[in-house]
């Protein structure tokens, strides 16, 4: 169960904490008063608006563990807010989740800080094996959910939601009594839970997470940190969220413009394949040949010549690429169309790296013929085994 969460959180557009809190607040989930700031001046203005401190200044990047990397700081007053924002904005924040290269901080969230009495974990996501939304809650707030699931499974409460009836009152009670919250908080918790669960459907979240959910010393319940991931496939019905889309790097942004399935990797073999499973299998074959792919590029089972040309140009523009492998099993995508695309792409380019081509399936002979006539310099591989041996000999 625990890692089903992680999976689903990844097939999605990630929102920043401040964006998530805007949406949560819109549905009636209480969050601390606060606003995003893209500069120390803006941060100061937010502090003015919020009034008296203390405040908290939080780096807005798409990765967790920000506190450990120095991305979350308390600030007693307006002056400290500006000073802290100065330090955080523009820093390269390294956390356990960013990898050693870190992430550049462009924005912070400035909020009022609250004295916290107790922390909880609360999330809703899709349980793949049961094909249902599931609410997860734990009194071990602040911890990573996978860590809770591993080390304290008895503290993880799960409520699967049947779409026939939705979130039922008894399930709220299972969670409330399971978390052993103070009786007086029952109605506040139930209201929060109902509103929080509604966020899932309202924005097609693949993951909605509040961690920690806190009870303050004044016995208020607040979403102190929040994470929303939006199902990519459902973005067509949430067009207003598209302006929040950010890409990992300019490569992936450009690929998205061409509707190509591109992921940047760290090897030297540029790879163009049709079909996701085939692309993964080709990566594995490259590894068997002792090399590593520079990218994952799936032009799609039904790609046309234009998609092929765009993909090929994208690969060639990557200076790390020392060899290009085109591995196509023609089904809907005919091999002659593939060849046309490749020829179009390179008509104005000087090719500096060796190219290995393997064409199989529909119209493979015609495709091979077109490539041969094009003057393009390339090596032919007859099947997957030949692909492996050609690459092994080239690196």
């Amino acid at each position: 169960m625990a890692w089903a969460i992680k999976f689903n959180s990844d097939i999605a557009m990630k929102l920043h904490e401040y964006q998530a809190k805007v949406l949560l607040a819109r549905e009636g989930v209480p969050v601390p008063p606060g606003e995003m700031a893209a500069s120390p001046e803006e941060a100061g203005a937010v502090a003015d608006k919020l009034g008296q401190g203390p405040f908290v200044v939080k780096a807005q990047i798409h990765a967790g563990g920000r506190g450990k990397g120095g991305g979350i700081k308390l600030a007693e007053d307006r002056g400290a807010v500006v000073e802290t924002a100065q330090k955080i904005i523009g820093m390269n924040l390294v956390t356990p989740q960013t990898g050693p290269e870190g992430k550049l901080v462009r924005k912070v969230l400035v909020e009022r800080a609250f004295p916290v009495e107790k922390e909880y974990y609360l999330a809703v996501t899709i349980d793949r094996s049961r094909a249902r939304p599931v609410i997860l809650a734990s009194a071990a707030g602040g911890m990573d959910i996978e860590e809770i699931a591993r080390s304290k499974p008895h503290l993880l409460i799960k409520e699967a939601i049947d779409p026939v009836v939705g979130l039922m009152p008894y399930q709220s009670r299972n969670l409330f009594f399971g978390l052993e919250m103070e009786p007086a908080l029952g109605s506040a918790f139930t209201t929060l839970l109902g509103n929080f669960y509604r966020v899932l459907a309202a924005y097609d979240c693949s993951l909605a997470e509040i961690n920690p959910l806190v009870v303050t010393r004044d016995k208020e319940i607040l979403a102190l940190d929040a994470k929303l991931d939006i199902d990519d496939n459902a973005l067509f019905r949430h067009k207003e969220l598209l302006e929040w889309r950010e890409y990992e790097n300019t490569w992936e942004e450009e690929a998205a413009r061409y509707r190509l399935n591109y992921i940047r990797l760290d090897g030297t073999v540029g790879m163009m394949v049709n079909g996701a499973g085939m692309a993964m299998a080709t990566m594995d074959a490259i590894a068997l040949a002792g090399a590593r792919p520079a990218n994952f590029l799936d032009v799609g089972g039904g790609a046309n010549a234009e998609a092929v040309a765009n993909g090929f140009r994208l690969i060639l523009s990557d200076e790390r690429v020392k060899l290009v492998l085109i591995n196509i099993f023609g089904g809907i995508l005919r091999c002659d169309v593939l060849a046309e695309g490749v020829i179009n792409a390179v008509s104005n380019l000087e090719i500096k790296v060796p190219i290995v081509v393997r064409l199989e399936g529909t119209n493979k002979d015609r495709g091979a013929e077109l490539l041969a006539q094009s003057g393009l310099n390339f090596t032919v591989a007859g099947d997957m085994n030949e692909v492996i041996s050609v690459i092994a000999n080239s690196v």
Partner: protein
Amino acid sequence: MSILIDENTRVVVQGLTGKEGSFHARQCMAYGTRIVAGVTPGKKGQEVDGVPVYNTVREACRAHAINTSLIFVPASFAADAIVEAADAELKVIVCITEGIPVLDMVRVLRYLDGKDCRLIGPNCPGLISPGKCKVGIMPGPIHRPGPIGVVSRSGTLTYEVVDQLTKAGLGQSTCVGIGGDPLIGSTFVDILKLFAADDDTGAVVMIGEIGGTAEEEAARYIKESFPKPVISYIAGRTAPPGKRMGHAGAIISGGQGTAAQKMETLRQHGIHVVENIGEIGTETLNAIR
């Protein structure tokens, strides 16, 4: 024999008048599939290559004996199309469409719970019983009739495998692409159960990939009660964690759902695991000898 589709399959194509729908319907008919009707709302009375078009599946089913649907409608209408086909009591529903929101699939799968109907997909190439019937988008000519059942989460990778099988002299009983999404209508186990009962299937090739636990569940089922040899390949051994590898379901994270783990589990449950995709044809031949 074969599973799910054969000479008696009679298909309605939902989204027949669209570009994809008409192209693939034509390919299926060329392969010999009996496509008897199409559905596109508002286009009743039109024909596509002689196949009459109706406004609704219900209308089509009143005019023709239909037992199978092939769906090409866009993602935002696909959940509706699946439920429409199920409501018309079609027994096999093949949804090619990719990009259906996961919450739509939550409702669709709950709706199908307990109904006498099998959904294949979404986000899949469909299925083919070579020499008999093709209800999908795979290239027909690479297939040959024979004793191997194929079940796969992938599209083109399945073509690769089938091509090798055919070249190795191993024809196929039925090849089923179950789809690459996290929520799908039929799992490996669902399809394996059908292969178990099919006398013409002598062995099964199962093509898995990273992400989820479908392969592990299949391994348990196979060890407990599947009576035929299974050969398996898992794609994505070198996929980095936390990245979505094309298929919505193909992501690994935190040491879970990895190819290595899946392959280990499959081996422990007595399944022949192929390391090199280039050798799956010959290894299958060796494994069933």
